[in-house]
């Protein structure tokens, strides 16, 4: 979402902040933070909304539970045709044949938000090809790598925080 992140920090309706709890990053309001501080650390499950987690090698991995917060501020969007929408929701990458629209000047390996044709946010992805290249490749090439999708709410119900 680029420099729109400061809109997440700098909200008019209260102070929100990011907190690290057991190598997951949570986004919560100040009021909630103060409440969460009174819970012992071992028994606290999740303060606020989980945005992502740090893996074993300290790489940050964005989680689908951040979708509601990040989708409105997305700068680079990808629209997916109805036919391959379900395929994306099952965790597959998006092929050129399923690509509907894509924002202009998307760089390669840029983080994007995946929408359905009805402008419903479906999840996150990484652009495998820039916008110019997307026009030239053959229909079975991958254009968006899958990162997170709303189908995970059903698939990984017990591991999602």
């Amino acid at each position, binding site marked *: 979402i680029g420099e729109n992140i400061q809109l997440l920090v*700098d909200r008019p309706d209260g102070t929100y902040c990011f*907190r690290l709890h057991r190598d997951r990053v949570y986004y919560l309001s100040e009021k909630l933070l103060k409440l969460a501080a009174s819970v012992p650390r071992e028994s606290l499950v999740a303060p606020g909304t989980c945005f992502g987690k740090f893996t074993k090698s300290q790489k940050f991995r964005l989680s689908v539970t951040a979708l509601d917060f990040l989708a409105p501020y997305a700068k680079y969007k990808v629209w997916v045709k109805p036919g391959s929408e379900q395929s994306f929701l099952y965790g597959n990458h998006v092929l050129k044949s399923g690509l509907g629209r894509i924002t202009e000047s998307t760089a390669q390996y840029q983080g994007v938000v995946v929408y359905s044709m009805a402008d419903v946010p479906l999840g996150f992805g990484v652009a495998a090809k820039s916008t110019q290249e997307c026009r030239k490749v053959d229909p079975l090439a991958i254009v968006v790598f899958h990162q997170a999708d709303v189908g995970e709410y059903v698939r990984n119900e017990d591991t999602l925080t």
Partner: protein
Amino acid sequence: LEYALGNLLAVDRNPPPAAALRGAGPRREALLRALARDNTQLLVSRLWELPAERAGGAGGPLVAQLPEPTFRLPREKPAPKPRPPTRWEQFARLKGIRRKKKTSLVWDEQAKERRRGPDPEEDQFARLRREKRERVARNELNRLRNLARAHRAGSAVPAAPLHPTGHQDRDELRRVARVARVSTASLGRFQPRLPKEPAEPPSRSGGKKRRFQPLLGNLAAERSRQLELLRDMGSKKPVLDITRAVNKQLRQEEAEAAAANKGKKQSKRGKRGRRQQRPGRSGKKSGARRPPQQQKPAGGGSGG
């Protein structure tokens, strides 16, 4: 009535009259009470007959001297049961081992018999002196070994530069100042800082462990810090100034080379070495020097 005045006790062994034993309520109560009162009166009169004296001078209370108590009080708790023999006791009984004390006799080689105590032929004073010397030497050795072990494990600063000379550089002085601050009785915790010294807690692990900001501390400051960070991340200007970094690195390399050359033989050898060194020295950072050098020889080559 049997009196045990040492225990302040009077025992009436006669059974109470039959009328007192039978069931009638208040009458029985009155009879028993009369009996008790009579017995108590007898006991008290006996106590008054004891030799008494005033305790604490003329004004104190009258204290009777009781005879030694004769009556044995019954046990409060049951008698201890004999504990089972321990493993050693069983073994000893099995083997027939009895407890016999060993005599502290020492075998004397010369006279071929046993004697008590130290050797009469040997100089005791010399022996004491020699043993003391040996002990001192062993202690000294252990002390040095401990010191070496502690030193090996990581020393903050060598003990030499504790007095400021004029030839110390900034880092050394800073290190020595830190050591001086920490060497108080409370390890520098309550030491007032100098005007320009930054306030920082001493980290025992030398800055290796990751330290986090407090959870709830000053949310407004955190917010402004985060916004600044995001702004820096979003701006296109790189944080590291490449040319300045390169120049600094070059200066450092030149200083190192000069110091190394000073140690070796100087003048001719040095000049030759330096002339050979310059075109050969192509580190990553001196790549920035190349473009201006390339143009000049090209101009010189075409002209000459």
